[in-house]
């Protein structure tokens, strides 16, 4: 059983409409752009494995809700970041890991997500974590993660998708608009 990445991304924006959302390069950013393009979306075009650290830095700089939309491949590329997030433990950071089982942006090659329990790794690093594989389960887990007074992570099994939508190619423009919207400068 798998959830729908579009529906779950929409749930994030519906439940935390003012959140700053940092999205991993590729599918996570493409789906976010398709669901709702907004200035507070920080679409990354590179630096796979560093998506969650961007969310951490932002969560330390603002009191607003910060939600990271990461993937299983990117999370596995920088598992040490979970240790950093757990150690810093910002109350306004939720990391969502959309687990589609592989590297969909580069052609669907499989990752090691099938044999690595990312939620358990997060728990071991000090984050509160949830694991879900349905749209309804995701909505409930996300609400609980947002309410949690500390860093939290939700792993959500999703079916692979191949979106047509793209965020703006102007990476510096994306960053500048996000900063204007979040920090008001």
């Amino acid at each position: 059983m798998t959830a729908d990445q579009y529906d779950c991304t929409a749930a994030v924006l519906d439940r935390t409409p003012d959140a700053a959302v940092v999205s991993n390069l590729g599918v996570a950013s493409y789906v976010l752009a398709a669901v709702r393009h907004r200035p507070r979306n920080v679409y990354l075009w590179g630096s796979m494995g560093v998506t969650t650290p961007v969310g951490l830095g932002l969560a330390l700089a603002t009191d607003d809700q910060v939600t990271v939309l990461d993937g299983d491949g990117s999370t596995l590329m920088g598992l040490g970041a979970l240790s950093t997030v757990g150690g810093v433990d910002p109350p306004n950071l939720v990391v969502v890991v959309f687990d589609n089982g592989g590297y969909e942006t580069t052609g669907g090659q499989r990752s090691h997500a099938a044999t690595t329990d990312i939620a358990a790794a997060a728990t071991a690093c000090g984050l509160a974590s949830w694991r879900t594989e349905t749209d309804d389960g995701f909505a409930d887990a996300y609400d609980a993660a947002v309410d949690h007074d500390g860093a939290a992570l939700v792993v959500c099994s999703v079916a692979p998708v191949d979106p047509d939508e793209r965020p703006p190619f102007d990476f510096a423009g994306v960053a500048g608009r996000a900063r204007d919207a979040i920090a008001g400068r």
Partner: protein
Amino acid sequence: MESDWAAAAVGGLERAGVDHVVHLPDSSIAPVLEAATGLESTLVSREEEAVGVLVGAWLGGRRGALVCQSSGLATAFNALGSLAVPARVPFVGLVSRRGDLGEFNVAQVPAGYGMPEMLDAVGVRNHVVDRPADVGRRTRMAAESAFSTRTPYVVLLDATVTGYKSEASREDDR
């Protein structure tokens, strides 16, 4: 005092408005963190993460500094080349540079001695400081230029600044 240069570095950061230090230190650069008690401080597990944290901090309106060793900066190149540089996100780096005068460990040489060229290759401006008296003013100038131009800038501190303790002579003694 051995760590006068570190206090000067922190003074340079503060005068340029830096309010957040993201770090994974070694013993050479640690005095900077000991002097940076007035700044928010975040320890990362790998230096590549630090670039991400600094980008996020800037998106939230902050000005950050990366404090680490050259070998650690070498782990951060994908984040420099595919995040901070193309997204035009500024930060200042204060990096202890291994691999030049006095280096005993050959494993520190390629990325330490070669760091200026490596940074040049990905478009990150950088400057090697080799005299303790230059640290404060040049750190401030680097940071001010980073934030006014919206680009990262790295200050590399040679062993002649951070302190040299002969390891090679131990071998000579044997």
